[in-house]
């Protein structure tokens, strides 16, 4: 029941004068106090979530599998998944002891209901509809020519068989969020605003838009009740405000934005409170060969790579909290193979020689360039631009745009040289290779096209054996490296300030914080 505006304004005023408004969440016994870098965009598991929302929703809802702290796929609501035909159909054995927050048991019927709802809901396809494209009958259900999802059969309440139109070895890894099918009947279409409908370790207790989220422990969680009673998450987008609140003792955990890490880790007062975790992110300096013709010469691309001192950025910009790789799949991901090829060292002499070999000695004939990026890469872009200017012999500028403008520019292929990154959604290298480099991918922002690479990706999708799949990934990576399509950049770790005595808190490689094992002093 919404309070009248005047009354709520009065309450806000009272709260302000009492000094407990905004991010200052009253500490309660057993409540872990942490923060979010932005507001949620939704608590509806059927709507496209932003990264922050998905991090919270994954505390509340679960899929067949989850990612562990090392980036491996581990059983969640499915205890086993098998394919008799190379990924064309999948048989899932579901966990028999999982219960929803409502107390109802989780069964195969809930999986089917969730999927059908994604495909039929109005006014837009649900978030997971994308992952369901390959299920037999999904298109017919979505277009309204069928009443049910024909590709799913349920032999018993804890077994589910899915038939796909094409083999997909990755289907069990997709980040589904299974929903209690009784919620809509009980609470109506806006049920998610009134109740929590998942099986996860925490139930969603409240979301005050722009202000805070409260999660409460699900005592009947199949993995055991969480060690804390609740988690309160204050929305604190500004790093200065975040640190001020942590310093004031209002937070137990403060995940740091990348551009604040360097200054924080060098302050002695935070000694022993800094925790770093691997990030399953691929980052690279992208070269658009369509837009900047000199980049079509591999020697020029290689010269750009040799002109960058990436080691210096690990130690300088990232204060050592970053992984230096020379690959297009990153650590913190199931299937990552430590790189056989060490990163090419900074070698301006060789870079100049290659440039001269390509007919551009001292930068002759090279049009001016700019390194484009979002606000979070300002320093890195400036540093690299200075190095490229010195080595290439042409002025290389920096074009920092706010995020929306930058995304629009790279989507439309309007940037020749830019810093791009991608954090994995599910624990398989496919999510970093195909999304960035397959010619049909909408997120292939360099517009690089290579039929051999595409073929490797398509073959890998049909290989249910991870070992065989990884062999193809290594081949694909070698191709990307050999072609110098982009220059791998150091991957910053997730860094958080954690109050002394707080233990067990983990940030998984996909960026989701695992509060389940967290303990307060």
């Amino acid at each position, binding site marked *: 029941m*919404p*309070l009248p*505006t*005047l009354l*709520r*304004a*009065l*309450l*806000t*005023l009272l*709260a*302000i*004068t009492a*000094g407990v408004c*905004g*991010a*200052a969440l009253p500490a309660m016994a057993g409540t872990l106090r942490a923060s979010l870098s932005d*507001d949620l*965009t*939704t608590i*509806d598991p059927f*709507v*496209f979530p*932003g*990264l922050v929302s998905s991090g919270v929703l994954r505390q509340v809802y679960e899929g067949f599998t989850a990612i562990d702290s090392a980036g491996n796929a581990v059983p969640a609501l499915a205890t086993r998944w098998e394919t008799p035909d190379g990924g064309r159909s999948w048989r899932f054995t579901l966990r028999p002891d999982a219960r929803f927050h409502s107390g109802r048991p989780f069964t195969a019927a809930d999986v089917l209901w969730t999927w059908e709802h994604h495909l039929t809901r109005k*006014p*837009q*396809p649900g*978030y*997971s*509809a*994308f*992952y369901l*494209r390959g299920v037999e009958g999904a298109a017919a259900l979505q277009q309204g020519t069928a009443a049910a999802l024909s590709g799913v059969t349920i032999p018993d309440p804890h077994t589910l068989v899915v038939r796909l139109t094409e083999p997909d070895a990755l289907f069990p890894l997709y980040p589904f969020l299974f929903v209690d099918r009784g919620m809509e009947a009980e609470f109506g279409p806006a049920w998610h605003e009134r109740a929590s409908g998942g099986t996860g370790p925490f139930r969603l207790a409240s979301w*005050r*838009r*722009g*202000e805070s989220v409260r999660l409460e422990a699900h005592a009947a969680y199949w993995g055991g009740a969480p060690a804390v009673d609740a988690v309160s998450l*204050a*929305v*604190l*987008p*500004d790093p*200065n*405000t975040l640190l*001020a*609140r942590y*310093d*004031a003792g*209002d937070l137990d955990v403060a995940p740091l934005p990348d551009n604040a890490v360097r200054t924080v880790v060098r302050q002695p007062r935070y000694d022993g409170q800094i925790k770093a975790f691997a990030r399953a992110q691929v980052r690279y300096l992208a070269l658009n060969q369509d837009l900047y013709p000199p980049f079509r010469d591999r020697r020029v691309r290689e010269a750009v790579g040799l002109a960058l001192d990436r080691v210096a950025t690990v130690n300088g910009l990232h204060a050592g909290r970053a992984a230096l790789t020379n690959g297009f799949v990153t650590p913190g991901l199931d299937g990552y193979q430590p790189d056989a090829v060490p990163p090419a060292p900074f070698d301006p002499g060789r870079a100049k020689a290659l440039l001269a070999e390509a007919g551009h000695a001292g930068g002759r004939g090279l049009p001016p360039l700019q390194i484009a990026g979002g606000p979070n890469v300002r320093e890195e872009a400036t540093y690299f631009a200075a190095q490229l200017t010195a080595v290439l012999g042409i002025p290389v500028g920096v074009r920092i745009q*706010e*995020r*929306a*403008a930058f*995304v*629009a520019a790279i*989507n439309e292929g309007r940037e020749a040289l830019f810093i791009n990154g991608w954090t994995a959604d599910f624990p398989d290298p496919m999510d970093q290779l195909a*999304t960035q480099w397959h010619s049909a991918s*909408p*997120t292939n922002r360099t517009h690089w096209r290579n039929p051999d690479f595409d073929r490797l990706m398509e073959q890998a999708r049909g290989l249910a054996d991870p070992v065989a799949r990884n062999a193809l990934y290594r081949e694909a990576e070698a191709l990307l490296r050999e072609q110098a399509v982009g220059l791998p950049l150091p991957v910053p770790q997730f860094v958080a300030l954690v109050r002394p005595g707080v233990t067990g808190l983990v940030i998984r490689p996909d960026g989701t914080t695992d509060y389940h094992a967290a303990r307060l002093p």
Partner: protein
Amino acid sequence: MTRRLPGLLLLTGAAVLASFLASHALPGDPVLLMVEGRAADPEMIRRLREDAGLDQPLAVQFLNYALDLLLGDLGQSLRYGGVPVTALLGDALPVTLGLMAGAAALALPLGLALGLAAADVRRAWPGTALTIGSVLVLSAPPLALATWLMLAGSGTAPWAVAALALPAAAMIARLTRTQVMEVLGRDFIRTARAKGLGRAALLLRHALPNALVPLAAAVGSVAGTILTTTAAVETVFALPGIGRLTVQAVLARDHTVAGAAVLVFVLLQVAISLTAEMLIGLTDPRLRDDGLRDDGKPS
């Protein structure tokens, strides 16, 4: 007041149109920002854009938006996955109004007290201190002042009120000082002083009430200052008011929310102006717009 209503409506309409068009003119696609490139093929993006009406020509989009507005429907937020804009405003408005009320409650007594203290003609330093302090507070960018106070106060909300109240208090103090000094030079004050009235009584019983009339005339600009500073203060202190909602909506290209938030700001500004006019009318009958004129001379 009623004569000005058509003009106000026109102004409001123009402001909403401008903010809607400005939001659309920025590069960036709200749907692409919403999905963040995840799990989205071109077909899904197309459907999402269609559902949001973004596939229509801009003129059609604006006409639909304007018609809905006239019918009282502010539409739905793209960023918040279809949540009605009215719900977002309903959450955010009380926060901003509460902040503004707190700031006004702090700024008024503080400004009056400082202004009175600085009107002391016997000592020069209070006036000088006020001048320097107010120049500093009023010339500092709101974002910088808010950040400084946030860090000074560990980001707690009372300091947010202070960040809003300080510029307003500085304005009130300067006005008070000027008016009080002007009143203190009048004949009736000399008479009162000759009768042996003390300084405090002179100030509080005679000078201040007379100085309040022009102060009431400045209420509009003081409240306007508070209102325009809310966006910076809410952003820095992470308070979920209208100001921060507007900033976030613009960044996310959430056109409907950006337009509606500007509408709220315009309406608040209009309400402030009208209230200020009423106050002026109450404190100085000569300025009442009732067709009668009182020349203020004793009969």
